[in-house]
Structure formats: C-alpha cells, structure tokens
C-alpha cells in the first residue's frame, strides 16, 4: 500500500517488517525520528524487539556487537558526531563478521556546529569494512533497508544505509509499503553461521598473530567482492517480487551522452529534473547515480562510461588536502582504462546548502566549456567571505 511517509519512517517501517530482534540507539538529530518511532513500535508491541537505551553511540555499537553475536537480527541508526564516536567499533563489527544493519543520516561534522546534510561523516568510515548504500528517496530507503539485511547476512558483513539529512530523513512523500507476508517471503528469518552458544563454548575476538590475520583480512576483501554479485542476486529477487530495482549504479541516458553527472543521494533526484531540461535543449547529457560506495562498483562504472567524454562528479563531502571523495573514487576506477572520460570534480551543498537545479546546470555548462579541469575540485556557489579577522 502506498502511504505518505517520512524518510525516517520509511527506514523504521523496513526495520519493523524485517522483524529485527535487537535495536540499540542513542538519539542525535537528524536521525532521532527513526529510533523514536521504533521505540514506540517496541512499546506498543508492534515489534517483538528488545530496545536497548545506551549512554553513547560507542556503547550502542558495542551492545549490538554483543547482541548480534548471539545470532539475532540487529539494527541501529546514527548520524554525524554519533557515527564518528562509533568508529572504533565499526571496525570491530566488520572484523567480527557481524551482519549488523545501520541507518546513517548524513550530517555535517562540527565545528561549526551543523545538523544539516554532508556526506563526510559516512565517507570517513569508508575503510571500516562496512557495505555502504546511498539512497535517493523514501522508497529506495525502505527497499534498501530490507535488502541490506539479506545482503549482510549472506556475506557476513555489516551494512550502512545512508540517507541525506532532512532532504530525505525529514521529507514526507508517497512510499509503497509492502505487507508483512511479502517481506517474510523476501527476507526469511536470520540463520546465523555462528553464534554465542553455551552448549558449544568458544571465544570471540582472540589475539590473532601475523600468521592468520592477513588471511582473515583477505577473506573480508573477498566477501566484499562477493557482495557485488550477491547484491545483484538479491536485487533480482526483490525486483521479481516488487518490481523495483536500483542497481549498484544507475545509468540514465548515458548511452549517447558526451557528459555524465555522477551523483549520490537526493542530488540525483534534482539532477533528473535538470537532465530533462538539458535534454530538451538538445544537450547530450546523462546521469550515473552511485548507490554503492563499498563495495565500489568499478566494473559497472567503467562499462557505463565507456563512450563518455567527460564526467562531472558532484560531491557533498570533501577530503581536505585531496578532493571530493566520490571524485577520487571515480578517478581511481577509471584511470586504468586505456581511454577514459575526463573527471571534473565539483563540491556542492556542503553543510546543508541547497543543490538547486540552477547550480547543477552551472556545473554542466562549466564542464562542457572546459577541456580539462582547472582544479581537482571546484567549489560551487561559494560566497565571498568578508571581514575576517
């Protein structure tokens, strides 16, 4: 049934339908609506889950690591500073091969104190071994969350569902909510491959010497690679049942395009509007929407951009001393192609600033009229800063 749902509640609905057994959370704007409604579901008995209130995000992830080790389905949500505080345990969750699912609402890091959207928080966790999925609208949030449990549990890696603060988390829009029977069919109960079990005692997280550690890491690397294939299978199953499919990347009008926007999150949605306008003017433009950051869909990107001349990567994030992070990832993916498009990097919408159709058009025209990028990253829409002392 289609309902007008807030993005946060689309996450919560999926978590409810996934019959998560343990939820732990610490509130932080703009994530709070997610766990607020989940705690209500638990209180009202609409979910048979244990809701753990904890004193920090660090404790939250620690609690979930413990819970997940017993072989139950777990979930949390966080944002910005909260995710940063979890950092140590994100490594632990992945290294321990625990299929925890987390919703992460992108929020700018302080100082300056800022609750608005900025992807640097989740991108800073790129190397923790978590699968990361960036979502465009409420429907994708709900669908990806359901898929995330299945993917996490099959490859034994944790998954982060990433959504833009406010533009997605606090926006109400029509979302198709599947029935419990449908979800049960898509997502059977979790069958752990290992669990804490007093009948069969074992130790978790022992000291691992150089003789084994490297192989264990290699197995995580392999699981990440496997995740791409598994994701494809899961999406196929999902599409067969619900008739919706997103892909690790989505190429829109890329076949004949000279210039392709590379976008993530809600910027993709606004960019679709710009694409319609530009195409109407006869411009050969496309969009490549990136959904997966880890595992990074290198092959798919190469294939979709085979005949493209220039790409304009829109980054709502920045790696100081380098460039926009998605731009770096794209450059790295493309550089070993014998012929590859030129990568133009743009930084836009930092700290919650609007990425408007006008701004995206400017990015397009700037890319079209330049042969080579003047800089690795061009910051868009900067205002002049006066009177600094």
């Amino acid at each position, binding site marked *: 049934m289609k309902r007008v749902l807030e993005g946060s509640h689309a996450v919560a609905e999926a978590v409810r339908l996934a019959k998560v057994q343990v939820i732990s959370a610490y509130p932080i704007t703009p994530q709070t609506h997610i766990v607020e409604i989940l705690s209500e579901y638990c209180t009202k008995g609409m979910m048979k889950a244990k809701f753990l209130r904890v004193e920090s995000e660090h404790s939250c992830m620690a609690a979930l690591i413990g819970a997940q080790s017993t072989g139950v389905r777990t979930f949390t949500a966080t944002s910005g500073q909260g995710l940063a505080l979890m950092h140590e345990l994100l490594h632990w969750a992945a290294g321990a091969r625990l299929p925890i699912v987390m919703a992460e609402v992108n929020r700018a890091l302080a*100082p*300056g104190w800022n609750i608005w959207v900025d992807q640097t928080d989740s991108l800073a966790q790129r190397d923790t071994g978590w699968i990361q999925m960036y979502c465009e609208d409420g429907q994708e949030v709900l669908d990806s969350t359901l898929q995330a449990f299945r993917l996490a549990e099959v490859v034994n890696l944790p998954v982060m569902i990433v959504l833009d603060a406010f533009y997605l988390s606090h926006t109400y829009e029509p979302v198709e909510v599947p029935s419990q029977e449908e979800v049960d069919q898509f997502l059977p109960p979790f069958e752990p491959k290992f669990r804490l079990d007093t009948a069969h005692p074992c130790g978790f997280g022992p000291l691992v010497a150089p003789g084994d550690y490297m192989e264990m890491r290699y197995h995580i690397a392999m699981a990440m690679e496997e995740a791409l294939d598994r994701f494809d299978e899961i999406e196929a199953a999902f599409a067969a049942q619900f008739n919706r499919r997103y892909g690790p990347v989505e190429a829109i009008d890329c076949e004949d395009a000279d210039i392709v926007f590379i976008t993530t999150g809600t910027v993709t949605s606004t960019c679709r509007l710009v694409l319609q306008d530009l195409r109407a003017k006869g411009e050969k433009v496309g969009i490549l929407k990136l959904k997966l950051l880890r595992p990074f869909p290198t092959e798919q990107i190469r294939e979709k951009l085979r005949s493209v001349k220039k790409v304009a990567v829109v980054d709502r994030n920045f790696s100081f001393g380098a460039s926009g992070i998605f731009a770096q990832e794209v450059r790295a993916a493309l550089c070993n192609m014998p012929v590859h498009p030129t990568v133009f990097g743009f930084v836009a919408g930092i700290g919650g600033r609007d990425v408007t159709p006008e701004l995206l058009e400017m990015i397009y025209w700037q890319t079209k009229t330049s042969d080579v990028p003047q800089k690795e990253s061009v910051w868009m829409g900067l205002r002049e800063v006066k009177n*600094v*002392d």
Partner: protein
Amino acid sequence: MNEAKNPNPLFMPITYLTTESNKTGSWRFLHPQYDEKTSPCSVACPAGEDIARIEMLASQGLFKEAWETILRENPFPSVCGRVCFHPCEGQCNRRELDMAVAIHSLERFLADTAIRYGIKPVLEKRPSQKQRIAVIGAGPAGLSAAWFLSMLGYACHVFEASAEAGGVLRWGIPLYRLPLNALLHDIQQVEAQGVTIYTGKPVSPDVLEIMKKDYDAVFIGCGHGRGMSMNVPGEDLKEVSEGLDFLRKLREGETPPCQGVSAIIGGGNTAIDVARSVVRLGGKALLLYRRRRQDMPALELEVEMALEEGVKLQELVAPAAVARDEDQVVLTLQEMKIAGDEGGRARVAPDEGKTRKVRIDRIFKAIGAQADEPRHQPPAGDEGLLSLSHTVLVRGNQGPVMVFGGDLTNETKSVVHAVASGKEAAMALDTLFREGFEAIVPKLEACRVGEGPSLSMEIYMGGQRRLRNPHVVRYEEINTDYFGFIPRVIQPRLLKEERVQSFEEIDLKISANLAMKESERCFNCGLCNQCDNCFIYCPDTSVMRDKDHQGRHINYDYCKGCGLCVVECPRNAMSLREEES
C-alpha cells in the same frame, strides 16, 4: 617568508555576536516567575513562625536574624524551644525523604545563642498610638498580647496576681523541662519591648471596673488554674490534692512530702510532670489513666522518659472511690474497656463489675483545669460578641473592649496556642481602633499563613512575607534530586540515672556546627535561598541577578518560557504560568 601576506585568512567557527541579537522572549507562551510560597511547617505552627526562613538563615550562620524572625511571630523562643509540642515537625515535607527537620531543637539553639551573647533584637515597631491597653494575667497569652500590641505602638500594662510573671510557665512546669533563666529571658524581652508588668496585683471585680475607665481595652488571660473534680467519694480527704498545686509548691521552692507511693490520676502533661517530679523527690509514682498509653494527650517522649525513670503506669482504670486506711489510702479503681473510637483515641466505658484496689500514700489529680472564677469566662450569645479562632472579643455599649484569650478560649491548651491567642487579640484590637469592628474578620483573613488558621504579625505589619503565595508546598513539588539522605540531629540528653537525681534540665545544648548542619537539611519549602540553580540552568541567560546580588529577576525579552528554571528550583520558589495573550 612574509607570513603577513598569507592569502588565506582564518575563517572559522568563532562568533562575536551575542545571543542578545535574538529576542527569544517573543516565542514565550509560558511565563516563569519567582513565586515564594508557604511551607507546611509554618502553617502547622499555631504561632505561624516563618520556619522555612528561620532555618535558611540559621544554615547561613545568621543566628541573630533567625532568632529575630522567630520573635516577629512568637516572643517565647526560649520557652517554646523547650516545651512546645512542635506540630511543625509533624508536617515537615522532609519526613517523606528521611526524617523531619529538628525544628524544635533549632529553635532552642537560636534562643540559647541569643542569651549567651546578650543579643538585642532589632524589630520593626510602629509609632506610638494613643490607645492604652490593660492585660490581666502575665502568662504566655497575656504577655504575647502585650508583646504584639507593643509592637503595634500601644502602651500596655500587665497585671499579675502572683509574685512573679510567667503564669503556668513559672508555676506549672518543672525545672527539668523549663529552667528559670530560660523563662526569665523571654519575659525580659517582652519588658524590653516597652511592656510594664505589675506583679502581685490581682484584679478584683472592683479593680476591673476602675481599669475599664483608664484603658481602651482589657485583655483577660488568667488561664485555667483550678482543678476539676473527680466526683468520687473520698475526694475531699487531705491525701487527695491537685497536681497543679503540687507543681506550684515545687516551683515556689518548697519540697512537698513524697515518700511512699503517690498515685497520679490523668494522662496529660501535668500528670507526667507530677509523676516525674515525685520520682525526683525520692517517691514512687503510679500513673493511672482511664484510656491507653497511646491515647494520652501528654507528649509521647515525656511518657517514655517517665517510664524509663521508674514511673509505673496502669491503663484503662478510673478512680471510683477513695478511703483512708490507717496512714494510707485505698483507691478503688473501676476497670475500663474500649467502646469505640473518638477522634483517633479510644472511647472507653466502665467494664461493669470489674474493680480493683490499690494502697497508696496520696493522690494527685491531673485531670484538667478550669478558670479560677466564672467571671473569667467570656459571656455567651451577647450582641457585639466576636468569636475568633483563639480569642473572644466583647464590645459593650460603653466602656472598653474586653478580649478573652489563652486557655480561657483555646480549644488546645498549649503555650504556642496561647501565643496565637495573644497575637490574634493584638491584631483584632489594632484593626478595631484603626478601621472599625467590621474590618476585623477580613483583616485577619488576609494575615493567615497559607489557609490558616495561624496568623502572621509580619504579614499584618506589611513585611516581605505578605508577598508569599498562600499555596502550601507539597513534597512532590520539591525537587528532591537536590537533597540526599542526611540523618537528623540527635538531641543530646542526660542519662536516666542522671535525670532522676535532680531537677536539672534534661535536654542539652547542641553545637552551632550541628545546628547549621541540621538547618541545612531544611528544604526551605517555597523559599528562595539564592542557590542560583535558575541562573545556572537558564539556556537563554535571561535569569539576572539584582544589583544587590540578593535577588533574581527574569529578563522577559529573552526568556522563551522553557520552564527549566522552575523545574530545577529545588524548593519550589518559582512558578510557571500560561502567558496572558
């Protein structure tokens, strides 16, 4: 390298804007305000003492100011700190947390401190008024009336039949409870206020008629000095006497004979006083009470100490007959049985046919007292008769106003009720003189502590206390997060072996250190003690200190009505109201 030419200035999260640019007061629809309220102890105190404030001052070491705060409502802190039945402690909100604050011990501490350092109180006093008032009886009621009338600017002359002032305090309470110097100090305070006491001046009907010509009002507070009759055969034997007379002889310096066994009939404080005095004089005391121990009007602690000291108690017995048997008397006792309940005490009735006899050496009656003369009683049903809560005012067609007070009109006969009576008389007379008869009742109503019936002279005289909200603070309204469990001070006392050997005062002094700690236990229900929580917690820095740093006010340009200050006020000295639109 010339760093001054650095092309990248620092643009960083530092702000020189103050929050003053955002007048958040426009958001407000709830309105916090300082709203001092009424503590339950002060309502329970018949004299309406401002206890929450007294303890606050004591906790700050302001002993003189604390003592003066008592004196504004009660001229007898030294006496009441010893013999008051302290109903205040029974209503202390702190009971719900651990134990009541030791208000009684602290009152005595403050009085002792004033005596020790010879402190002279500085109290507000009205300019002299033209009316003159005579007071008959220098007991607690009469002296209180004189004290408060004198505060209000009236010349007062007190006429006392006995050789010394004090009434029942001087002649009816043994020294081990109320040492003479403790009483004298309070009486001297009254005199220092400008009251003249004439002792050895009984007022006969003739003298009263003369007085009526000289004075604008006469307060009659002669008390209840005459014992009641048991109405049993043999009551007139010389071995049967009044407990009050026995106590009086003792206080006059005599040593009445006490060898053998003395039976004391009654269960009030007088009965206990007689019994314990008998023990101290080397006799044996047998207390006979028609109800049970828990039904006794005497203070429980007094009963407990009496039994410790060797007083024997027989419950549920009433005297039926007295007969001499050689040099002793035989008292026939009718056994009583419980036949129901009346106001929390057992109602008893004779258990027919069951009697027993005790052989004893003498009998003291302590079954209540009445006025010495019927003319001391206020007339009933007269025109111009105004019955107030602690006094009866009689305004004849001519001549001065007569006010009956103290035990003559009080339902509960206690020192602090006598004080309440004197205060009420003073307020009523002053209002009568200044605003007329009809104004008395509304004026008194406006001076109640909380919902009353206690009255406050500070409110009457227009002091700060009149600004208090009459709402009585409840325990749930205290933010007990700010109060931990702290044990109540233990009143040091003589051991029972020491007690029975003399009439030395039993309750010992507590140190200033202990007194301050004990007074800090007080929640100061409803009062601001400048703890600054409102200031600390206000997220809009809109709680401002007054210029003198002794008060706070709220800057409503910025207060957005979040109510944090009200919630974090430990003692409920603030309120949150809906904004008037």
